[in-house]
């Protein structure tokens, strides 16, 4: 397994666990109020710290174990994999933007918009990282 693939696995696990916790623990009963935004902000802080921390630790761990691999530049296959993953992530991103536009028409609360945007980014990232992992496993 290449260094990039290991980092992708770490990103996938970190994203799933951190945002899984966020969406499960979010106090949905106050999503329609002003406090819903503050709650999201409070919860996003630990989520961000967990993701950055987990990614940095994983990258450092694998870089120390195999420094040569960590310094390798992406080759054409890896660039293709990254491009295809990013392309696939574009679709949930567009769907999320449209969902937000409809939320504006229905005059939903700011916290609903915020959570919808967070969900859009998370789903797009999971599609990107997940599809890239699939392509890594498949060979391209």
């Amino acid at each position, binding site marked *: 397994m290449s260094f990039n693939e290991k980092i992708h696995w770490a990103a996938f696990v970190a994203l799933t666990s951190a945002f899984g916790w966020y969406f499960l623990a979010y106090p949905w009963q106050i999503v329609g109020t002003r406090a819903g935004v503050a709650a999201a902000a409070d919860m996003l802080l630990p989520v961000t710290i967990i993701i950055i921390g987990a990614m940095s630790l994983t990258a450092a761990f694998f870089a120390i174990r195999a420094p040569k691999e960590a310094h390798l530049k992406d*080759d*054409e*296959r*890896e660039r293709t994999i990254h491009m295809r993953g990013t392309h696939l992530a574009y679709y949930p991103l567009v769907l999320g933007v449209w969902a937000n536009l409809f939320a504006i028409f229905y005059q939903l609360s700011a916290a609903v918009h915020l959570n919808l945007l967070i969900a859009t980014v998370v789903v797009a990232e999971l599609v990107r990282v997940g599809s890239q992992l699939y392509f890594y496993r*498949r*060979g*391209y």
Partner: protein
Amino acid sequence: MARLPFTNDIRTLRFMAGEMTQAELGDRVGVTRQTIAAIEQGKYSPSLEVAFRIAHVFGKPLEAVFQWESGTD
């Protein structure tokens, strides 16, 4: 997964080049070991440049490394 319309003799050529490893070939071509493995297994179709580089490492013409499968379009 769609099968590539060509095969390759990289494994044999590596063997004949003193059991050259995939990592060594990757270093000389400028790609990762995983990419050489994917090309060798027919999972990844390399660019023309990488194909020529692989052939160049073995000192062979391109068609001695990659062969178009007869019967494919």
